[in-house]
């Protein structure tokens, strides 16, 4: 099939970008979206042009590296998948596909479709960990009884791959779903309760410092999250934050 592409091209972080049109022929429905971009880049390289830079790594929906706004939606028109899991069968012959980087002040564009998501790393560094005694008498985590329901909720929160689709989808560029997932995965477990108050305060403070917007509960993040992270996590983080604030 023949497709028309409108792709954001930006030389570097300081340059002004623009949308550039490309036409690709011979695209098959079984190709992945990123394979389609590989083909485009092969054509561009063979013509002596600069290839389109885009992030990718595992190409199986695990790493969260691919961060593309496709036709106005993070990771494209399908739900519960990342851009690398999107296939060209989701499009029709003659379609025009718009591809942009995820947009947020806290996710500056590095080049073309590549963005800097180190803001997420700094939020995690602010409290997304537990302290474990390593003096030789460490208790095996499996020896600590945990309710099945809480273990499941914690695991579900931990499936967040930090791709940034929640920020990209939110009209406010808010990182509440990501941060709340990282807060929840520890807050639900006994190992995480020890530092729970400091964790939520520090991670929320860092989130605000990074320049993300505020949550207005539109629910767009939950809809677009490839891992189905629930809004319940945001409510849980708000409870944790309120509780930590009251206790000082």
């Amino acid at each position, binding site marked *: 099939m023949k497709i028309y592409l409108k792709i954001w091209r930006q030389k570097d972080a300081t340059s002004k970008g623009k949308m550039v049109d490309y036409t690709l022929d011979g695209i098959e429905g079984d190709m992945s979206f990123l394979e389609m971009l590989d083909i485009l880049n092969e054509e561009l390289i063979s013509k002596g042009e600069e290839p389109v830079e885009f992030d990718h790594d595992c190409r199986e929906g695990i790493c969260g590296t691919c961060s593309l706004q496709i036709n106005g*939606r993070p990771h494209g028109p399908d739900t519960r998948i990342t851009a690398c899991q999107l296939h060209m069968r989701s499009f029709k012959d003659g379609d025009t596909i718009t591809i942009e980087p995820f947009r947020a*002040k806290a996710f500056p564009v590095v080049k073309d479709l590549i963005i800097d998501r180190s803001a997420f790393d700094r939020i995690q560094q602010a409290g997304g960990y537990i302290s474990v005694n390593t003096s030789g008498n460490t208790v095996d985590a499996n020896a600590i009884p945990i309710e099945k329901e809480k273990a499941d909720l914690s695991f579900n929160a931990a499936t967040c791959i930090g791709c940034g689709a929640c920020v990209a989808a939110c009209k406010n560029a*808010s990182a509440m779903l990501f941060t709340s997932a990282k807060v929840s995965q520890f807050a639900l477990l006994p190992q995480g309760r020890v530092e729970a108050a400091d964790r939520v305060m520090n991670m929320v403070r860092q989130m605000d410092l990074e320049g993300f917007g505020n949550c207005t509960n539109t629910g767009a993040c939950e809809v677009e999250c490839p891992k189905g992270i629930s809004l319940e996590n945001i409510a849980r983080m708000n409870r944790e934050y309120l509780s930590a604030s009251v206790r000082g």
Partner: protein
Amino acid sequence: MALSGIFLVLFLALHFTINFTSVISPETFNELSHFMGYNVIVQFIMQPILIAGVVIHFVMGFVLEIQNNRARGVKYVQYKGGANAPWVSRNMIISGAVILAFLGLHFYDFWVHEMAYKYVEANPEDPTRYYAETVEKFAPFWRTAIYVVSFGLLSLHLWHGFASSFQTMGVNNKYTPSIVNFTKIYAVAIPLGFAFIAIYHHFNPIIH
């Protein structure tokens, strides 16, 4: 934002209850209005709290909107917000701004008039005047139309805002579906009731 919103939702229910008596019993409406207008606790404690609630709510709303706009410096060329979130939740600033403009008219119509009557003109107490004043206010078609349109926007604002307040306060549990359903009923019933009262009094001279 959430706390001031819940407070204003509760106030709306009280306001509606009193207003609705104007449809079923002019005498009761006059009695309640006179009580609200001259009771010391209502006038000098509850009224300032209410005004503070309104001011806090809309100032925070505008501050959040400015912060949120700054959080995405470069806008998308293509952004399908409607694919993942309803219009009402994405445009609370629009419905809120219309309600704020309406409140300006509403305060001018009733609150400023009341302040002038009591404290500027220093008129004597008249517990029987409220019903007639209300009917007179809704005589012009333009005023009734503005009120009805504003109640429509109020409905949209409540549709998202009420249940959203609970989420912000950390309430997301087995009761959430009930809160969402109650929100929908409240968001339709209360503004519809207010609109009915305005339209009723617009046609009041014809009805009676």
